[in-house]
């Protein structure tokens, strides 16, 4: 069988302000595990969304099993045997596993009534075929992340998917769970099902895939058989420039003064007994898997979550941070993970989004002055290199990188000493990323301190002075500059 299971030709996709995919072409043979690698923002998810019918390409064609297809929605893609397992699960939490697998189209008796017995038994069988054994009557919201992922795979199999895409499937799994997942993928391969495996975790890619395609900035760089390539070659292709030039050099040094000290802090079931210190002029990186509790940790420090145990000391003084206003008063700021949801008021202007953190600064005797605000915003725009025709522009029109800069500008405007950044360069193109790194460096040079959460290992290692690894809510370890290397961090994060 010489035909390709899937061929994508010259796929181009434009979003406002950014060319997500540029004439992407690649082929996948039937029954192979084909990995799609690339940095964040390279276009992997967009490509998969087009394949599964969520988006329509602006130009180009999709050919399945030799026939060209047009997908107007996910149902079309599904009927051609394509199923995509997203990073954020497409499950209805309040419903059972069985019902989620057959969502909307439950098998019925002749009279039209749902045949629950059949539904449950089929669902159970699917789960068991994948090597697991848990009740399909449970509500999805009660499952672990690994189990939810399994339900998604079962969903794909229930519609007899011939091509299954998995978008960053292992971001929240333990090593044991990852091994089980790989067993399943191997089983799928044996059944002749094609798997497209999207990941930026190269070790996994090497252990599971047959072929690797590299994407960078919306373009296909190369496709190679896994056995014919190496880690170094992949990284070079993913990054496009020699690895050490990726992160700007730092001129300033970490000072001795401790600005923030956390003693055995806990937060509900998310964070347990974490202690660490932050020095002046330092970038402390926090590594760990998605869902390990890093975000909850920093939210608790900032006051967005209640701190349930332990204590915090800012500049040596014990503080009680019960809400975000108090966090800000302690000179702590948080650049959130999701800038569109919680970092910006999308329909507000750049000015309004920046000055909101320090309104008294743009008020004369208590009266807000729009002129002062515009002036200050213009200064921020200049200082951070935000590309926009005017500060009155709505932030929704800005690119991801510029949006992130506005969020940064907001915190700089209120002059915080301690800036926490949660996944600061997620979804930002490479050029803007570098600019943000430069900004971070200049901030610490001025004596500020940064706590940076990142799921991108190279970024954590490249930008931090020290790295703290969080695993299932606990601090697994801390690595100093000379101890920092990828394997060490990964091991702590996963085991």
């Amino acid at each position, binding site marked *: 069988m010489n035909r390709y299971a899937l061929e994508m030709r010259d796929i181009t996709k434009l979003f406002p302000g950014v060319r997500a995919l540029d004439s992407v072409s690649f082929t996948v043979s039937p029954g192979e595990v084909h990995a799609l690698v690339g940095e964040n923002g390279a276009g992997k998810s967009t490509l998969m969304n087009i394949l599964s019918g969520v988006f329509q390409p602006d130009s180009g064609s999709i050919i399945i099993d030799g026939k060209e297809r047009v997908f107007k929605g996910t149902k079309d893609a599904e009927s051609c045997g394509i199923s995509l397992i997203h990073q954020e699960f497409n499950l209805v939490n309040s419903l059972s596993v069985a019902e989620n697998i057959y969502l909307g189209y439950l098998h019925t008796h002749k009279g039209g009534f749902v045949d629950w017995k059949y539904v449950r038994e089929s669902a159970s069988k699917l789960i068991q075929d994948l090597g697991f054994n*848990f009740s399909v009557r449970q509500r999805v919201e009660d499952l672990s992340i690994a189990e939810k992922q399994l339900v998604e795979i079962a969903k794909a199999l229930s519609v007899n998917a011939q091509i299954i895409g998995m978008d960053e499937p292992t971001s929240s799994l333990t090593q044991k769970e990852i091994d089980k997942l790989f067993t399943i993928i191997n089983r799928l391969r044996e059944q002749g099902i094609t798997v497209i495996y999207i990941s930026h975790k190269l070790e996994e890619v090497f252990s599971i895939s047959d072929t690797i395609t590299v994407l960078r900035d919306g373009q296909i760089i190369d496709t190679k058989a896994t056995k014919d390539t190496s880690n170094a070659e992949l990284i070079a292709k993913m990054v496009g420039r020699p690895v050490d030039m990726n992160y700007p050099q730092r001129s300033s040094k970490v000072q001795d003064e401790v600005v923030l000290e956390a003693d055995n802090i806990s937060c509900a079931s*998310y964070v347990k007994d974490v202690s660490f210190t932050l020095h002046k002029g330092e970038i402390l990186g926090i590594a760990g898997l998605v869902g390990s509790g890093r975000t909850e940790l920093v939210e608790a420090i900032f006051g967005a979550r209640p701190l349930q145990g332990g204590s915090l000391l800012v500049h040596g003084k014990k503080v009680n941070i019960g809400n975000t206003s108090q966090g800000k008063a302690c000179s702590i700021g948080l650049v959130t993970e999701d800038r569109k949801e919680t970092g910006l008021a999308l329909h507000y202007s750049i000015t309004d989004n920046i000055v909101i953190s320090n309104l008294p600064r743009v008020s004369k005797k208590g009266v807000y002055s729009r002129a002062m605000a515009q002036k200050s915003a213009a200064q921020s725009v200049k200082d951070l290199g935000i590309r926009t025709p005017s500060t009155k522009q709505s932030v929704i029109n800005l690119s991801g990188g510029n949006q992130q800069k506005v969020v940064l500008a907001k915190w700089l405007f209120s002059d915080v000493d301690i800036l926490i950044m949660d996944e600061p360069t997620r979804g930002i193109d490479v050029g803007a990323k570098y600019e943000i790194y430069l900004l971070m460096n200049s901030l610490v040079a001025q004596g500020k301190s940064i706590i940076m959460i990142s799921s991108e290992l190279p970024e954590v290692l490249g930008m931090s002075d020290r790295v703290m690894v969080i695993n299932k809510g606990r601090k697994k370890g801390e690595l100093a500059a000379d101890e920092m290397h990828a394997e060490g961090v990964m091991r702590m994060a996963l085991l």
Partner: protein
Amino acid sequence: MKKTIHNRTAVFEFVLNQTVLLLLLAFIVIMSIVRTSFLAWWNIQSILLDVSIYGVVACGMTMLIISGEFDLSASSQYMWAQILFVTMLNATNNPFLSILVTLVSGLVLGTLNGLIVTKLRVNSFIATLGTMTMIRGLCLVFTNGNMVSTRNEFVKTLGQAQILGVSSLFYIYIGVLVVVSVVLAYTNFGRRLYATGGNIEVARLAGIHTSFQKTMAFSSMGLLCAIAGMMLVTMLRAGSTQYGTDIALTCVAATVIGGTRLSGGAGNAIRTALGMMVIVVLYKALIYLGLQAYYQNLAKGLVLIAVVVFDVYTTRRRAEKIGR
């Protein structure tokens, strides 16, 4: 390890689910101790009657809440059904035609609500606030605030009929309850309502026509309001804009007390029925305790607030326990 956590959650779940039942039993027990006549047959009949009529509307409200919407116009639709039914009876003296016309009117009004919410994209609160005002206006124009009554014999017989000593209206309610429960649990349409309310994006991606689902839920509500209005007329042989001004929010409260989340995606009609019983028993108890009307209302208001706070609190605690 995982299994025990699940089992414990299952038991906790079970107990929480039965809270409504326990609450109900507790009320009844306390009241019958305080006033033994509380358990008198005629009082039970009275309770069942109230539960039956309001319960029909509550079934519709449950469907809507499951799909993620609200309907404030239920009160007005209920009034309108009464008035239309009586007017038709007086005009044609044909009960079956009158029933048909009233049912159709309910369907039409309900569908209108549904279309405004799904096609015009108006928030269901405001939309149904608007339609509530309009339909109320319609009622007032028709009756000028007066009561309208009928002498129709069929209606009189139906209203007074009893099977096994319990009013026929109760059996109508049971019928409605069974139908709604079956639809919710055993039809794809019903299950799609849950999906729509549980996560509308996921439902859409799965190919469910969420607009259709919601509109149908509103239509069903309209139909049920019509049925409830007619039931009241058989009981009183009259209709008025005075009856049922609080029915919409009472039904929402019953749904919430019954354990259905306001956010949608879960719940069922039987639970709501239990919730409605709790409310009616509570109200009757207040009357029995000799509380003046004003104090009763005060209590009703406080209960409503307490119910919502409790609902949010328990939902949030569950979420925290599982870890989001």
